[in-house]
């Protein structure tokens, strides 16, 4: 059931209607059934892997909770009589058991993720490189959304161990947390403590007319981003990236720029659709984007792009690694032997390297992912940190006003160019292709005929002339920038339209509908592509 299909829209309408009719205590059951139906429409076998993973996590979370409850009972019973040492001993005893169950659950989750997502490619590479014949796991399927639900379930059980939440006693609710259809395909990563209280309510949340209008406008804007911007721009991007040897100079640069537009419109468009549907259910899902292209630094960009992934990794990988005894001891050793500065910074950089390698690996088993959205990002941030003192001196010498608009624009452009460069690797099948693609940038210079050619070929699919297609792509970029600029100023276009009355609402509503009908990528020649992040 494609998100852009009529069946999906019908599925949402039916689900929301039933959800809103039945009593509050049963609403989560509707979401569970809807989520399972949605999942099965993509993969029947995958649902068994998901349920098994959720039940294993559920079981170990209960075991951890039992250990916590036993410790708590002992403390209550012996509070007055027990010595400090006895209390410490009991805490350590039950703490060890909790850590054992937590580690076991994490190992099982990671093992299933590794087996389904990474093992196949790794084993083929090993067989090819070392001329061995190890099992290649050809029959193992890649369950839909495994990269998302595995991490969410690890987050859930870790939060139980950290006392952030109590273990859920109903296994079906843990399954729902894993399979929740608004997040299963491309995120965002939900935290159990924020998502589940919204789903499992005692009292019904009311869907008022204004919220419904806002939700529908957001869904429509999401579809416009996907169908009218990402898919149309994608025609040009696919043509150039697939046949980069035929293009050079300006055409290659144009495709690189267009891929940034495509990726953003595609991913953020999906999030708008899901967040809008969430509003119809009375569920607020976390925002994943916050005008990322206005960032001044790469580190800031990653706080505004795929926000929930960064937040997950920060809370469950980065902080625990840096707070581990190994890293603390490493830091102390550096402080004593090198300097205070080194003791503070070097462990952080090592932690960052681990973090970025994981982010890259999370996107896929290929080296292009590990490099583009992993190691290269670490390199950017690391260089930014170590060159900061020199950069400050240069800015002071040149008397650059850091608060000026011009400087902000320069910094945002720099971030965008660095990300566009990284995404060349992200969108290339191999490192060789990526370097080949980059090499073509320096051949040919400004080649108007090639640029015209890609627009003409792209426009043939879109069914319009090359000149109009070129104007259309430019318009897409301008619209995205303008909308983000308005949002950056703290203004919501939807809220403004609704507050201005029916005429403004209708203008916005019908403009979006008109754009979808007229500019959306459809037709027999059009091959509807999945969302880019669907693969992860």
């Amino acid at each position, binding site marked *: 059931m494609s998100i852009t299909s009529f069946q999906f829209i019908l599925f949402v309408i039916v689900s929301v209607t039933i959800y809103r009719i039945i009593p509050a205590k049963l609403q989560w059951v509707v979401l569970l059934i809807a989520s399972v139906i949605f999942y099965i429409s993509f993969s029947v076998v995958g649902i068994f892997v998901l349920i098994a993973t959720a039940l294993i996590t559920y079981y170990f979370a209960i075991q951890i909770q039992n250990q916590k409850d036993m410790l708590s009972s002992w403390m209550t019973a012996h509070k007055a009589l027990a010595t400090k040492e006895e209390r410490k001993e009991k805490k350590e005893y039950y703490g060890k058991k909790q850590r054992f169950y937590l580690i076991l659950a994490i190992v099982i989750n990671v093992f299933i993720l590794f087996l389904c997502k990474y093992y196949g490619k790794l084993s083929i590479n090993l067989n090819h490189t070392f001329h061995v014949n190890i099992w290649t796991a050809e029959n193992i399927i890649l369950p839909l959304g495994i990269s998302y639900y595995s991490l969410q379930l690890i987050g859930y059980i870790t939060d139980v161990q950290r006392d*952030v939440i109590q273990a859920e006693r109903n296994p079906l609710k843990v399954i729902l947390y894993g399979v929740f259809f608004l997040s299963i395909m491309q995120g965002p990563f939900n935290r159990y403590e924020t998502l589940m209280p919204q789903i499992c309510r005692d009292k019904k949340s009311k869907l008022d007319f204004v919220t419904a209008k806002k939700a529908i406008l957001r869904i429509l804007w999401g579809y416009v981003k996907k169908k009218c911007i990402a898919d149309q721009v994608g025609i040009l991007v696919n043509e150039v990236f697939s046949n980069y040897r035929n293009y050079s100079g300006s055409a290659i640069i144009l495709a690189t720029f267009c891929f940034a537009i495509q990726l953003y419109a595609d991913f953020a468009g999906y999030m708008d659709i899901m967040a809008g549907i969430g509003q119809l259910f009375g569920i607020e899902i976390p925002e994943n984007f916050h005008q990322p292209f206005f960032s001044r630094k790469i580190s800031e960009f990653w706080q505004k792009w795929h926000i929930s992934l960064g937040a997950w990794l920060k809370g469950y990988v980065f902080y625990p690694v840096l707070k581990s005894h190994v890293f603390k001891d490493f830091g102390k050793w550096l402080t004593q032997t090198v300097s205070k500065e080194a003791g503070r910074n070097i462990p952080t950089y090592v932690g960052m390297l681990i973090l970025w390698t994981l982010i890259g690996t999370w996107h896929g088993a290929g080296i292009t992912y590990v490099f583009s959205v992993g190691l290269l990002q670490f390199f950017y941030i690391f260089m930014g940190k170590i060159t900061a003192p020199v950069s400050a001196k240069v800015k002071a010498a040149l008397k650059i006003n850091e608060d000026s608009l011009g400087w902000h624009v320069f910094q945002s452009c720099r971030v965008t160019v660095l990300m566009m460069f990284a995404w060349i690797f992200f969108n290339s099948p191999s490192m060789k292709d990526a370097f080949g693609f980059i090499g073509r940038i320096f051949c040919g210079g400004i080649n108007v005929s090639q640029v015209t050619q890609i627009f003409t070929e792209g426009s043939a699919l879109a069914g319009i002339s090359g000149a109009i297609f070129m104007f259309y792509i430019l318009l897409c970029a301008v619209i995205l920038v303008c909308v983000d600029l308005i949002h950056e100023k703290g203004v919501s276009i939807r809220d403004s339209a609704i507050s201005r009355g029916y005429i403004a609402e209708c203008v916005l509503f019908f403009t979006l509908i008109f754009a979808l009908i007229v500019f959306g990528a459809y037709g027999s020649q059009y091959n509807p592509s999945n969302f880019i992040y669907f693969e992860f």
Partner: protein
Amino acid sequence: MSREEIFERLNLVFRDVFDDDSLTVGESTTAEDIDDWDSLHHISLLAAIEDEFDIEFSMGQTVKMKNVGEMVDYIAGEL
């Protein structure tokens, strides 16, 4: 140790970690209020506070604390 004394010592730690002698934190100060207080500095800050007060922040506390006031609550509870 009184809350004021905790704040006094905490301010010295903040000034040292963020390398800013004019920095003063209050109950409602958050990471949003200090330019350099990102995830990289957060762990360095907690490590410095742990050393200063001879306490240890659990992982739950590391991710749960929402402002300096909550940090002080935790420190006061541990002392």
